[in-house]
């Protein structure tokens, strides 16, 4: 049981301007789940990509079963029985499970022995209760099933050491539970697992040992039974972390947004909002809770002018803004943090300055008579960076190189700097680490205290309960009920989210 199967000694990896891994020591014992815990940008993925042969260390040594190895590429990793399951799956959507498993198999030449592969897949699938048909196309599978295909791929190649890079980031709570069962069974079979995460609850649930990384360095390795969640959080962030936020008493002001019997269709042509009505007042956070896909995204898009309302009205401070253009709506004081920061809110290949001015580029002082003053633009970006303490490698580096937390800070900073009357935030902390999450939530509360009306749409019920003053539960494009935070009970909201209860009358 105590056999050390992977040992990394003094691993160091430089990227231009960053020391991603700074003399990291790490070991994995046979039959354990060893979690790598750390905030985004702490160096977890870099270390694992080194084990998988995608990056090569500048310094340091790797031993597998006591033997020194040089892992040049993922094939080498596989030959050393290391299999990595990436956060973003490495699957070809239009191919079948079988074809994905066969891809890159060295044992297959021009002719692929589908029968044999299919048989082996089924054996693996049965053994671990994966319930995967080798002939299904990848796109037909749910995210959880796709992840199982990734696991099959590694097991098929006889992996003994499995690396899972933030595997639960894309899963529903139920799917995560299923994954944990699978992992436990893999352990029983004698596999060893490296689990990467920054979600403390699941880390406490599943790990044997935990190694905490911060800024590319190892903070320490601990046994789960010796620590608490709070202790881990402190190791990870470097200071105390609050699991609940202090809130000033509500000072509600006048009605800012009124949504009246609004209807809109989604991309598939189905009615996603069904006469939805609610109001948001100045100085409050109105949280919309609901299970993914009940019209949350469509609601935000319709209010901000990115989607046409087919019926009903949105009224901002007594002015009708229904179906006005996104620019008009933004100029009237509605700012928006979209759910997908890299696809909608930011332009990944452009630099910090170019992203910072996305809202203000066409006004003075940044633009005068159609010409952009690059110096003013850079000053503006720097002021946002200072105010929100955003970490950027260089101001002219593309924002895709920023960590998720810093991207979101930049986005939030830009939107708040517009001094909106209404701020719509959709999943503002999704995928962020503890520190960044806390920062974003505190900012939302601060703006609320300044009198801003905040519409918070989130699938994270804890988040809704932590910061909202009133909660509207959305189900199939309707608000089931609006509850004041004092009366909010988790169970009751859970039932409403599942559609139990007649719509409010």
């Amino acid at each position, binding site marked *: 049981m105590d056999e050390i199967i992977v040992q990394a000694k003094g691993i160091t990896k430089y990227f*231009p301007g960053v020391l991603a891994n700074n003399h990291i020591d790490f070991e994995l014992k046979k039959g354990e789940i060893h979690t790598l815990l750390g905030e985004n940008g702490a160096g977890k993925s870099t270390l694992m990509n080194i084990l998988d042969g995608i990056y090569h260390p500048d310094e340091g040594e790797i031993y597998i079963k006591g033997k020194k190895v040089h892992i*040049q590429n993922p094939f080498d990793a596989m030959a050393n029985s290391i299999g990595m399951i990436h956060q973003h799956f490495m699957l070809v959507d239009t191919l079948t499970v079988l074809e994905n498993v066969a891809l890159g198999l060295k044992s297959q030449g021009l002719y692929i022995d589908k029968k044999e592969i299919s048989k082996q897949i089924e054996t693996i699938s049965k053994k671990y209760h994966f319930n995967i048909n080798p002939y299904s196309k990848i796109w037909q599978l749910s995210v959880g099933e796709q992840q199982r295909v990734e696991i099959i791929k590694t097991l098929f190649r006889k992996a003994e050491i499995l690396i899972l890079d933030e595997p639960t980031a894309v899963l529903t709570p139920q799917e995560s539970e299923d994954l944990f069962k699978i992992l436990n069974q893999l352990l029983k079979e004698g596999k060893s697992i490296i689990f990467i995460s920054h979600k403390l609850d699941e880390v406490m649930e599943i790990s044997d040992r935990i190694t905490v990384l911060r800024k590319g360095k190892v903070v320490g390795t601990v046994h789960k039974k010796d620590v608490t969640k709070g202790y881990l959080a402190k190791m990870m962030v470097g200071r105390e972390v609050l699991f609940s936020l202090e809130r000033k008493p509500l000072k509600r002001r006048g009605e800012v947004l009124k949504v009246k019997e609004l209807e809109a269709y989604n991309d598939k042509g189905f009615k996603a909002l069904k006469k939805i009505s609610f109001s948001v007042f100045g100085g409050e956070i109105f949280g919309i809770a609901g299970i993914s896909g009940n019209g949350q995204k469509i609601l935000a898009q319709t209010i901000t002018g990115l989607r046409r309302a087919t019926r009903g009205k949105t009224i901002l401070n007594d002015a009708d803004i229904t179906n006005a253009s996104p620019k008009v709506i933004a100029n009237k004081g509605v700012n928006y943090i979209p759910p997908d920061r890299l*696809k*909608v809110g930011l*332009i990944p*290949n452009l630099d910090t300055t170019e992203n910072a001015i996305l*809202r203000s*580029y066409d006004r003075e002082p940044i633009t005068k008579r159609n*010409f*952009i003053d690059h110096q003013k633009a850079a000053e503006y970006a720097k002021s946002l960076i200072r105010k929100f303490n955003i970490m950027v490698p260089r101001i002219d580096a593309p924002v895709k190189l920023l960590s998720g937390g810093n991207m979101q800070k930049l986005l939030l900073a830009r939107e708040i700097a517009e001094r909106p009357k209404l701020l719509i935030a959709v999943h503002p902390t999704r995928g962020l680490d503890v520190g960044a999450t806390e920062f974003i939530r505190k900012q939302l509360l601060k703006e609320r205290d300044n009198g801003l009306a905040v519409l918070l749409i989130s699938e994270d019920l804890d988040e809704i309960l932590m910061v909202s003053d009133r909660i509207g539960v959305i189900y199939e494009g309707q608000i089931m009920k609006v509850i004041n935070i004092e009366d909010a009970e988790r169970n009751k909201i859970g039932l409403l989210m599942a559609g139990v209860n007649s719509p409010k009358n």
Partner: protein
Amino acid sequence: MLLFEKRETVSTKLKAAIPLVSVFLGLVTGAIAILFTRTNPIIVYQALVKGAFGSVYTFSETLVAAIPLILISAGLIVAFRMNFWNIGAYGQYIIGAIFGSFFALNMPATMSRPLLLTIICLAGFLGGALWGLIPAALKAFWEVNEVITTLLLNYVALYILKYLMYGPWRNPESHGFPLSKPFELNAQLPRLLPRTRIHFGIILGIIAVIIVYIIIKKTKFGYEIRVIGENKRAARYAGINITKNIFIAMAISGGLAGLAGLAQLSGVIHMLQIEINPGYGYTAIVVAWLASLNPIIAMLISVAFGGLEAGGYQIQMAIRVPFGIVGTIESAVLFFLLGGEILKKYRIKLRRNIL
């Protein structure tokens, strides 16, 4: 063993070194092809350089060939920055030439030269712009893929030209050849140096490059097209008017291609005919791309390509190697240049197998 490792950023030194080394390797490969013609590659390259840059006259021919490339690539850069793949400079060039020719052929020979030249240049620009606006509208209103529409419209343009040349615009005195009447002197762009064919188009090209540079680097419009090009959804989110920007960008892109076509007629050929070198419209795509969409670098690359063309004629005549050799050298250089792009994305390490 060769190892590929992803890299996030590229140093400026490397950015400059990659194309230089690529060109060198391309020339070495070209040399191998030359050896097959039983000629000494060094002599061919010497002759090529001499033929392109060796004397005032040969260099002037290089510049003449560069003029259309400079104009077209400057325009393409505007569209490409918006991720609008304008493959239709070929057609826009032809239509620009036709529009300009209409005035060149129909205005009285007594008309003031500056006035007529201004008119035909504007007409050339307008013709190319209108031809560019067709795919722009299809894209903006119905999301039709612009690669296909711009490409197909090239054939339409070519057949319009053929119709005119075999039909209504044929010079009755051309003995049946598909040629128009020659342009009168007042419709010819002035030549800048005696005994060379360098014409006023080069000044138009330089002006276009400067304007395009300012547009993409300094203006609100330049910023907007970059945002659209990099992330259309972010552009919509920020309230940028995508339709308007597609129209403006394609008007500039098509317009400059049209101006290039007209300049070639009015500056070099002096009549409308079927062979008016619209192939520059395709070469300019490569030029724009190699210049990483920077108009000033594109101008320099245009001169290099012009040199290849002019030098190619020279070696054909002087050493009697087939003109195809020039194409081979050009392709080999391109091949390595495009292959070199991978070094901007990956670090390649050579490592002996230690295991």
